[in-house]
């Protein structure tokens, strides 16, 4: 085990297949999947949380989605659609939806209902209750779901390389194929660091977007 691949400056230029390029393609997969997944799961989760309708779906969609094996889904999609971005995005989006949906739902359901009643009492419309009261108050829970989705997607996006696509998984798959453990180690380290950095970024974002009134209370 050695760090020679990671530390070799030749692997840090901007050529095709270099570490920075792989990080970029990896990030691209991750961010697109997070974006699409959140765009689907957030409204649904909020709606279910707000109305209370379909809670069964919200709770079980979480586990059902999690149980879909990403590698199988990816191989299925590539077999059906051929090489391209779509198969990766579909497989990774499926990974993003459950935690975001469940946390959006849970964030709203676990709110103190007296607060919601009060908001209604002062004459807020349902839409205002949702966007001005429920959503801001659910943010901490929501963000934790989003962050755990991020961690998972960053690690799992590596399987894209198993079907001939890019991303940091290339270091793992190619390292394995050419029997270069130093490359595999480089891949594992970069992926883990990327996950931690992204988590840190979102943690900061969370501090910035969550109302200070809530953070004081949540330290209970």
């Amino acid at each position: 085990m050695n760090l020679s691949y990671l530390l070799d400056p030749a692997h840090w230029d901007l050529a095709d297949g270099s570490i920075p390029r792989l990080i970029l393609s990896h990030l691209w997969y991750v961010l697109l999947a997070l974006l699409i997944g959140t765009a689907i799961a957030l409204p649904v989760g909020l709606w279910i949380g707000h109305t209370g309708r379909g809670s069964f779906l919200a709770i079980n969609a979480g586990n059902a989605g999690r149980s879909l094996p990403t590698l199988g889904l990816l191989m299925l999609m590539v077999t059906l659609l051929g090489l391209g971005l779509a198969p990766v995005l579909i497989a990774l989006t499926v990974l993003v939806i459950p935690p975001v949906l469940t946390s959006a739902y849970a964030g709203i359901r676990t709110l103190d209902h007296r607060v919601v009643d009060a908001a209604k009492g002062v004459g807020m419309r349902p839409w205002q209750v949702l966007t001005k009261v429920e959503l801001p108050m659910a943010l901490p829970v929501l963000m934790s779901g989003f962050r755990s989705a991020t961690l998972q997607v960053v690690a799992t996006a590596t399987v894209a390389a198993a079907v001939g696509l890019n991303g940091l998984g290339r270091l793992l798959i190619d390292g394995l194929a050419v029997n270069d453990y130093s490359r595999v180690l480089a891949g594992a380290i970069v992926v883990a660091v990327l996950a931690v950095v992204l988590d840190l970024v979102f943690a900061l974002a969370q501090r910035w977007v969550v109302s200070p009134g809530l953070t004081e209370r949540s330290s209970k």
Partner: protein
Amino acid sequence: MITYLSNNGDAVLAALRQHIALALIPVLIGFVLALPIGYLGVRFPWLYHPLVNTCGMLYSIPSLALFVFLPVLLGTKILSPLNIVVALTIYTVALLARTVADGLKSVDPLVVQSATAMGYRRLRRLTDVELPVALPVILAGLRVATVANISLVSVGALIGVGGLGQLFTRGFQLFYVEPILVGIILSVLLAAAADLVIVLLGRLVTPWTRFQGAAS
């Protein structure tokens, strides 16, 4: 798909059996290990944050990398299923240790104080009061870990040991949808069954949660 199954029943069954073992043995070992580790995170509060961060870190190591490196670290053969078992045990501990800690932390301090007042010593109080009260949270974590493991095992197919994942690679090498579909469906069904078992066991061991649910 029916034809595929009828022609390959034995192979599919063998893959399923391997999948079950590779996914669930780590859940058991991981659960047993996570209990004391999670407890330490509560008993010594300064340990909590390092614990949570380490767990997050461990979970972000790509499984394929772990499968490849464990033989180097453990001296096992590269195709040994043990590599998969150890890797998934690590993930299970990473998930559950935090859940155990959070579960124990969520126990109402008043409950703990009452137990202490009733004369419970630390260990008895832990096993008879805190753990049972924390159980619903811990079981929720156990469900997540079990389902995640069942889905992760298949990545092992990329190095030749992966239960149902072998159906994925086989189908993929021929651009043949049937085996892949069979693998996905069995994997999802297996996860659902394991999940259901945990839920039912959970009801059995936490009968009070049902009454609470009925009251609210």
